[in-house]
């Protein structure tokens, strides 16, 4: 017989969890005591529970494993909600273990009590309250199973303190069967045949892929299929790295800040092959405008509810993306030929490309796009890039060319500012040798800046690329364009001296103010300070805007482009 707390740790060991991100407190003291007595599961002590969940989330995003966070009851749990919702919106597998007040105190408004299951319900794939120590191991098994299978997502397990003290036999099930949970894996062969036929008939095709390709590790299969078809490929923000960005067939990211060629190709395509993507509002713009063109849509997704949710689909294929792509590839072996008119489509796409929609104006100040381009050069395109949310996020997505999956770590769905730095920690725990740069802004970085302390404790050598324009850039851009330049609350005044701040935390700080200093500073950070966290405060052109831009309510082809150069 072992205690509930020991059962928790044994379960983590059985799941081959090598680290958890957490913060101790009253309700989890037994668990922390059990953690102390072993060394298989490492613990990363964050400075705020939100960061624990973000880090666990990035651990998952940057690897094929499930990230785990451990927090105490009450405020420990409420602090995780942003992180859980962030992971939920991007379908990230994650298990969050929460302490709860002892069973007999539940509902009594006890100290540090909150209704964890109730508060997290709308932003988890599933959650559990463990009411009996005999159910503890199987519940944790279910949590890992549910988090990682089907359309992945975060699962919360709420564990009352008395349960962690009770003694019980430990028996961890090898497999698990749930009559109410059986996600579809294999796609319907008839539908796949139809899809292949449709691709053969396509004259103006596009392959449009999203985060589902990354999450299901289907990038190789997708690349194989795309090469065979020789069709243009576009990725969503979440899908970047699903197809090599430096490849000729890649037309760039699509959507609100997508390239001219990607958005036009998506809009005017006669056949769209959508893979692990969900036609969300930031991708297709105004749905009526998008619906104005006649086209046929093939949609592969593991989640049936993503299909025909916003755009009517002609050939729905519910299944695990790599398995479905595999079937398609097999079918195409038998005399598949694309339509000769696709060549004309490519001519059209090259014409759109000629518009060079990512060209940006030069300035005496540092342009943020330039910093990202230089970062790409200096890191050889091999870095893991985490980002926060705002203009810098879009610049990172547009100018860092991701050739590999799981290298681009950002909050796409929820759009959570402050994730970048804890994301860097999670990436480094999953990929200890990786080069990690956190592209951020002076607004976002301050939302989780306390994690510089965690980075010091564990020696996380993250390179913070702070694109500092002294303003909440994306808010400012919208106010400039749609609110007659009334810059309501978008100035960030009283900024700290980031160099001194970094130094105060024991890190290296740099302030870069001239364009010619950008590259040398980056080189220095990635060589001389390879093993240090370097806070690089780039003072950038305050007027830089993100283009192309599809304004809210506009159609995909109604882009605002950068001023003629």
């Amino acid at each position: 017989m072992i205690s509930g707390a020991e059962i928790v740790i044994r379960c983590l060991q059985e799941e081959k969890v090598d680290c958890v991100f957490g913060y101790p407190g009253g309700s989890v003291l037994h668990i922390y005591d059990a953690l102390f007595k072993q060394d298989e599961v490492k613990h990363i002590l964050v400075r705020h529970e939100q960061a624990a969940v973000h880090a666990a989330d990035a651990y998952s995003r940057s690897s094929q494993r499930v990230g785990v966070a451990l927090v105490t009851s009450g405020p420990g749990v409420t602090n995780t909600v942003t992180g859980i919702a962030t992971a939920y919106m991007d379908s990230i597998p994650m298990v969050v273990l929460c302490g709860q007040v002892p069973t007999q105190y539940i509902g009594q408004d006890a100290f540090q009590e909150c209704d964890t299951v109730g508060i997290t319900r709308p932003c988890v794939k599933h959650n559990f309250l463990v009411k009996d120590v005999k159910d503890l191991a199987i519940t944790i098994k279910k949590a890992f199973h549910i988090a990682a299978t089907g359309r992945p997502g975060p699962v919360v397990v709420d564990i009352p303190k008395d349960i962690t003290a009770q003694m019980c036999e430990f028996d961890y099930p090898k497999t698990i069967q749930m009559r109410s949970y059986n996600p579809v894996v294999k796609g319907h062969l008839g539908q796949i045949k139809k899809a292949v036929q449709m691709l053969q008939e396509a004259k103006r095709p596009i392959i449009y892929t999203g985060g589902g390709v990354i999450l299901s590790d289907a990038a190789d299969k997708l690349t194989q299929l795309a090469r065979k078809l020789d069709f243009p490929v576009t990725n969503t923000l979440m899908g970047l790295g699903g197809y090599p960005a430096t490849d000729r067939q890649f037309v760039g990211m699509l959507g609100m800040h997508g390239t001219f060629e990607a958005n036009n190709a998506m809009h005017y395509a006669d056949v769209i092959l959508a893979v692990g993507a969900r036609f969300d509002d930031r991708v297709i713009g105004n749905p009526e405008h998008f619906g104005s063109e006649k086209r046929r849509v093939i949609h592969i997704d593991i989640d049936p509810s993503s299909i025909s949710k916003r755009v009517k689909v002609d050939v729905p294929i519910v299944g695990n993306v790599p398995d479905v792509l595999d079937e398609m590839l097999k079918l195409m072996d038998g005399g598949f030929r694309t339509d000769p008119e696709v060549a004309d489509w490519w001519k059209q796409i090259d014409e759109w490309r000629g518009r060079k929609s990512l060209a940006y104006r030069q300035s005496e100040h540092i342009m943020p796009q330039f910093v990202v381009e230089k970062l790409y050069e200096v890191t050889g395109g091999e870095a893991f890039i985490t980002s926060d949310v705002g203009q810098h996020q879009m610049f990172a997505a547009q100018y860092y060319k991701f050739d590999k999956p799981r290298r681009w770590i950002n909050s796409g769905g929820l759009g959570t500012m402050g994730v970048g730095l804890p994301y860097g920690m999670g990436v480094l725990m999953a990929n200890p040798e990786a080069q990690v740069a956190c592209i951020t802004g002076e607004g976002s970085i301050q939302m989780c800046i306390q994690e510089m302390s965690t980075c010091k404790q564990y020696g996380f050598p993250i390179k913070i690329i702070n694109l500092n324009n002294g303003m909440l850039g994306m808010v400012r851009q919208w106010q400039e364009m749609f609110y007659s330049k009334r810059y309501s609350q978008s100035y960030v005044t009283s900024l700290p001296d980031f160099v001194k701040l970094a130094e105060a935390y024991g890190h290296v700080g740099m302030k870069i103010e001239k364009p010619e200093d950008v590259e040398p500073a980056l080189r220095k950070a990635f060589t001389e300070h390879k093993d240090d966290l370097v806070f690089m405060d780039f003072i950038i052109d305050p007027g830089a805007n993100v283009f192309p831009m599809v304004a809210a309510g506009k159609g995909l082809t109604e882009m605002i482009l950068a001023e003629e150069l």
Partner: protein
Amino acid sequence: MRHIISILIENESGALSRVAGLFSARGYNIESLTVAPTEDPSLSRMTILTSGSDEVLEQITKQLNKLVDVVKVVDLSEAAHVERELMLIKVRATGKDREEMKRMADIFRGRIIDVTESTYVIELTGASTKLDSFIAGLDAGLILETVRTGVCGIGRGDRILKV
């Protein structure tokens, strides 16, 4: 369009709030909801009366199926089914109204299940429209209290919702 959704769901605490939460979070309509355990105590059967376009209904059933506790979902109104609702209605039954109330209950095949000097409680079962008609047929001033269970339904013949 009016739809009756039948759900088999794990009989666990919080299961009801997962379903109710889904409807409110996604802006779906619940006109009535009824739930109770089935012959297998580990399963509850829930019936939701809702309305919406075909697209909305498709999303409702898909989203319900996605809930981990949900075992099966069926849109009963897609095919032949029977549906019933139970109402208990307390009415003033004095003077000439006393006899009139008894007659109304008989016409609608209701039963009087509680009697005092001045009130009746009438039990009435049927399609929701029948209950509506009964209420409409009474003098509103005589209705003291109504309670309705909401619709429950079952498929006809071989249409069976079971694990």
